[in-house]
C-alpha cells in the first residue's frame, strides 16, 4: 500500500509550480515555454489557498509578491497581476463560503467562475495600465487553459475531497 504524499510536500510543489509559471515564460528558452501559453498556476494557488487558509495573512502577501514579480517580468505596470491574483483569492474566499458540500465538480466550477472573473478584471484594468489597444485574448486563453487543467493539480493546492472525506464542506 502506497503512502499518500504529505500535504506539506504537496503544497511546496504547488508553490514551486506557481513561481515557475511566473518565471519560466520570461526566460527566452525557445518556443517550448511560449507556445502554447503556460497555465497561470498562481490562479490555482490563489483559489486553493483561499479555501485552505482562510484566516492567514501570508497567502495574500505571497500572492502580492508573485504578482509583483510577474509585473516586473512582463514590464507592465506594477499592480496589474497583483490585482488579478488577489481578486482570484477573494473570489476563492467567496466560493469557499458559499459551498456547502464541495466535491471535485463544484470545486472545478468554482474555479472556472474565478478564472472568468479574473478575465473580466483584466478586461477592465489592462486598458488602464497598458493602453486602449491592449487585448486580453492571450490572458483569457491562458486562464481558460488554467481552468481546464485545474482537476489535475488540485491536490497541490487543496486537501482531498471525495469519498474519503465525508461531507467535507458540511455546515456545522
Amino acid at each position, binding site marked *: 500500500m502506497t503512502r499518500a504524499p504529505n500535504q506539506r510536500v504537496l503544497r511546496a510543489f504547488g508553490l514551486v509550480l506557481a513561481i515557475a509559471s*511566473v518565471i519560466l*515564460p*520570461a*526566460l*527566452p*528558452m*525557445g518556443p517550448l515555454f511560449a507556445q502554447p*501559453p503556460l497555465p497561470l498556476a498562481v490562479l490555482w494557488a490563489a483559489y486553493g489557498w*483561499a*479555501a*485552505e*487558509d*482562510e*484566516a*492567514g*495573512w501570508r*497567502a*495574500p502577501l505571497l*500572492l*502580492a509578491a508573485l504578482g509583483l514579480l*510577474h*509585473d*516586473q*517580468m512582463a*514590464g*507592465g*505596470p*506594477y*499592480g*496589474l497581476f*497583483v*490585482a488579478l491574483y*488577489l*481578486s482570484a*483569492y*477573494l473570489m476563492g*474566499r467567496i466560493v*469557499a*463560503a*458559499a*459551498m456547502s458540500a*464541495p466535491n471535485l465538480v463544484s470545486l472545478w466550477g468554482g474555479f472556472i467562475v474565478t478564472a472568468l472573473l479574473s478575465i473580466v478584471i*483584466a478586461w477592465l*484594468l*489592462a486598458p*488602464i*495600465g*497598458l493602453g486602449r*489597444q*491592449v487585448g*486580453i*485574448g*492571450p*490572458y483569457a486563453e491562458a486562464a481558460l487553459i488554467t481552468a481546464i487543467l485545474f482537476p489535475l493539480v488540485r491536490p497541490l493546492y*487543496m486537501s482531498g*475531497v471525495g469519498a474519503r*472525506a465525508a461531507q467535507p*464542506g458540511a*455546515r*456545522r
Partner: protein
Amino acid sequence: MARRRSGFRRAGAGRKLTLGVIVAALLALGAVGAVVYQSGQPASVGQQVGDDIATGGGRVATGPVRAGEGFVSRLLNMWDATARIEALEKENRDLRAWRDLAERLAERNARYEALLRMPEDAFGAGADVSQSIAAQLVLDSGGPFTRTLVANAGADHGVRVGYIAVNENGLVGRVVSVGRRSARVLMLDDYTSRIPVMGEASRVRAVLAGQATRPPELITRPFQMQAPMLDFIVGAQSLREGERVITSGDGGLYPRGIPVGVARRDGSGQWRVALAAAQQPIDFVRILPYVGVERPEESAVVGDGPPRAADSSVSAIGTQTMAPPPTYQAAPPPAPRPQAPAQQPAAPRPQPAPAQPTTPQPAAPQPAAQQPATPQPAEPAPAEPQE
C-alpha cells in the same frame, strides 16, 4: 477526532471578514491604485532597476538551458541528416538558378539607377550603423499582455530610449526603457506597437499594428477613410502577396529601409506581415542609434539659389529631363540568355549621335514642308499632357 484544517470543512461558517480577506482586499485596492497611477507614464526607475536585476538572473538561468538545447538539437538532427543533406542539395541547385537571375536583374537595375541618377538605397537610412551596440536578449516579456524583450545592454553601454533593435533578419523593435545594464525592447507584435511601413516594390504605405499572438496586421483602412488620401486606395490594391515590407521612415521614429517581413494575406483577406526577425528565435540583437532627418526649417541654408549639385538627383530632375546617353561601347556585352535566344528581339544597337539631323521622309509632300527640321522618333512623343 483529528482537527479539521480545510477551509471548506468550515465553509459557511466563515462569512465574517477574516484577516486574510482584509489584507487581500487592501492589497488589491492598492494594486488597482498603482495601475491607475502609472497609466500613461513612462517606465519607473524601480522598473529599470528591476530589469537590471532580472537581467543578471536571466543570464544565469538561461545559460545551461541554451547549452542543453543546442546539444539536444544537434543530437536530433543526426537522425535525418541524410535526408536533410539531399533536400539542401536540391535547394542549393534551385538557388543557383535564382542567383543567376538575381545577378542579371541587379545588373540591369544598376544600369537603370545610373541612368536615372537614383540615390543609393541604403539599409536603414537615418540609422547610425557604425555606432550600433550588440546585445543578447536575456528575458522575454513573460506576460500575456505585452510583448517585450530585455537585452543585456543599457545606459552604461550607450543605449538610449528610442534606439532601434534589429537582428540578422530584420527589425525586432524599439527600446522603450533603459536601465544601467539592461534595456527593454518593445517588439513589433506588441499590441501597442504601430509602425509606418511600406511595400518595397509597390511602395504602398501602411501602418503595422501588433496583435501579440498573431502576425501583425497591415492597416490601410484609416487611410482609405480620408478623402484627400485617395492614393492609398490604389496603393493598397497594388500590394502583392509575398512582397517585402520595410520601414518607411514616416513619423520619424524608425529609419527608412529596414526589413520588417513579408506581406501575407490571411484567410479573411486581411493583410499581415510574417516578421523577418521571427524566422528563428531572437537571441542577439544590434541596437542602432537613430538620427532623425532634420526638417528643412531647422537646418536652413542661406544661399543664392537652388542647389545644383551634380550628384543630386533632385537637382538633376529639375535641370534636365534626360541623362546623357550611356556609352554602350564601353559597357560589357550583355550575358546571353539561355531561354530561346533566337526569339528575342535583337538588342538595340547604339546609334552614334547624329552630327546633322536627318530630314525625315515625309508622308505627304505639302505638310512636310511645314515641319521643323528635327529628327522624328520612331514613335510619336507625348506632346500633349494627359488630363
